[in-house]
């Protein structure tokens, strides 16, 4: 039993990757290092795919890229409406990042979303984006007044929602990934042979993609509500 607890604790804890020797030693956790790796993958893939774009006589690679891009773009435009197209690049970035971050377990790295810091930063950025969208659309006065809609009595609940939404986003993502990690650790401890494989597929691919989709969908829903 101790072996199980030990392996579990090891999986759950975030280890320090390296230390920056300024300000009295800042610990850089491994999640930041894996995030760098993910950024590297995404940047290289983008540069390779965008390399030779043409207008006529496009090759297969460009056709696939264009069809995927148009599909995602139309999907977001349907959610956000015509006025929200400014925010679509951020949502595309986030969905790709979370998707790859959840699936990086297949490659053997530790997923960065297992770290509470990453999910907190994602949620905080999302909520700042939503409020900025609201302020840009309505102006500061209109944004403050929108807290009193539809009835002024609900104003405290609206203000509270300002903090509850990012918390729920963050905990949802973190909890899903944590649950996946715990179950995987249990299975690996008990049946270390073939059984982890399908579960790993289910948790990493299916669950990861759905969680990324839900995160981005909720953010765009909030943006739509703020833009009205």
């Amino acid at each position, binding site marked *: 039993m101790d072996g199980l607890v030990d392996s579990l*604790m090891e999986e*759950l804890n975030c280890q320090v990757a390296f230390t920056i020797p300024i300000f009295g030693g800042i610990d850089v956790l491994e999640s930041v290092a894996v995030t760098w790796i993910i950024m590297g993958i995404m940047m290289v893939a983008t540069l390779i795919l965008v390399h030779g774009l043409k207008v006529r006589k496009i090759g297969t690679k460009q056709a696939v890229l264009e069809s995927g891009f148009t599909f995602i773009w139309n999907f977001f435009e349907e959610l956000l409406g015509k006025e929200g197209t400014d925010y679509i690049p951020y949502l595309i970035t986030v969905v790709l990042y979370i998707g790859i971050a959840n699936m990086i377990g297949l490659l053997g790295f530790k997923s960065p979303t297992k770290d509470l810091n990453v999910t907190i930063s994602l949620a905080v950025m999302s909520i700042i984006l939503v409020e900025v969208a609201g302020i840009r659309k309505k102006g500061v006065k209109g944004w403050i007044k929108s807290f009193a809609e539809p009835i002024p009595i609900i104003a405290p609940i609206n203000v509270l929602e300002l903090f509850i939404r990012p918390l*729920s986003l963050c*905990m*949802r993502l*973190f*909890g*899903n990934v*944590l*649950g996946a990690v*715990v179950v995987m650790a249990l299975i690996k401890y008990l049946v270390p042979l073939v059984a982890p494989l399908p579960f790993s597929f289910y948790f990493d691919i299916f669950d990861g993609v*759905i*969680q990324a*989709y*839900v995160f981005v*969908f*909720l953010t765009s829903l909030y943006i739509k509500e703020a833009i009205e």
Partner: protein
Amino acid sequence: MTGLIAIGAAVAVITGIGAGLGIGMATSKAVDAIARQPEADGKITKALLLGCALAEATAIYGFVIGLLIILFLK
């Protein structure tokens, strides 16, 4: 003390019942809708998956709280 911790963690995870019931009912209604109108199954599936992920969140909150109770209360 460990007994109380264990009971606390168990109570925290009872929230899983709500998620199970809710998702079960949602899925049954979704299957009914698909049976009634098979060509709308793309939209129905999307809405179902979204609803399931959102409903599962409450169960996940309970699970996380249970885990925190086990790990951090000595």
